[in-house]
């Protein structure tokens, strides 16, 4: 077992354990903070995969923006009483069973897929992945349309969210 594999396993364990904490802890703010830990672990995975840009963007967007928004929302809607009782539905075992079934099915599928033994592709020497990503995002024969549509999507999200908030104010 190489050092890289050990780091991967530690990170993977961290991600899974904190994901389990997200779905099980009672205190919602703790759940949000556990989500931050899980997202940070995912950023480490991106770093191991040498996706530099995504690794930092994961921290900037998820931890710096989305997690903060979650924490604000939790604080705005918090009521002591809500954290006293059970946080899961009475029939929680059905989703658990469903999750386990899907996981088993996926694992079987993944392990029978012939491509899984593939080794990592060689990164061409001197390739700046961020620059390559930028070229892919703006070239007309690649992803310029999704790139611009993403911006329209964000505009729609902003307008929608602002509209909901303003209507509420009156």
């Amino acid at each position: 077992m190489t050092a890289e594999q050990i780091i991967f396993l530690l990170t993977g364990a961290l991600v899974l354990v904190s994901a389990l904490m997200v779905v099980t802890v009672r205190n919602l703010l703790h759940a949000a903070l556990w989500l931050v830990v899980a997202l940070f672990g995912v950023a480490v995975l991106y770093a191991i995969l040498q996706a530099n840009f995504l690794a930092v963007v994961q921290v900037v967007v998820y931890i710096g923006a989305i997690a903060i928004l979650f924490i604000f929302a939790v604080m705005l809607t918090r009521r002591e009483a809500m954290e006293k009782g059970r946080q899961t539905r009475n029939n929680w075992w059905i989703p658990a069973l469903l999750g386990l079934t899907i996981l088993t099915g996926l694992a079987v599928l993944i392990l029978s897929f012939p491509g899984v033994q593939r080794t990592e592709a060689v990164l061409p020497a001197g390739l700046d992945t961020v620059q390559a990503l930028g070229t892919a995002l703006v070239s007309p024969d690649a992803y310029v349309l999704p790139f611009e549509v993403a911006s329209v999507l964000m505009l729609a999200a902003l307008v929608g969210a602002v509209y909901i908030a303003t209507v509420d104010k009156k």
Partner: protein
Amino acid sequence: MSIPLSWYLILAAALFCIGLYGVLSRKNAIAILLCIELMLNAVNINLVAFWRYQNAAQMAGQAFAVIVFAVAAAEVAVGLALIISVYRRRKTVVADEINLMKW
């Protein structure tokens, strides 16, 4: 260069299933959104792993992951705005109690 692709896929599958369990079992609407984030991240791990193990000069996987980031942000923005709006009117964020359109 020695982590098999299967490890990433299994990890992502496990993360996805944990998120799925959370979405279906948690009562609080904000917690449900938290779990959706876990599921989206599982998808992203897959996309980036495929990018790395397929052809690293082809940026499709990373470009898709970037779009998933945008979708996640939009989903959180609108979702939380709706939850807070509902909370202000009905003083609850429990998904089962938001049943105006249920029959």
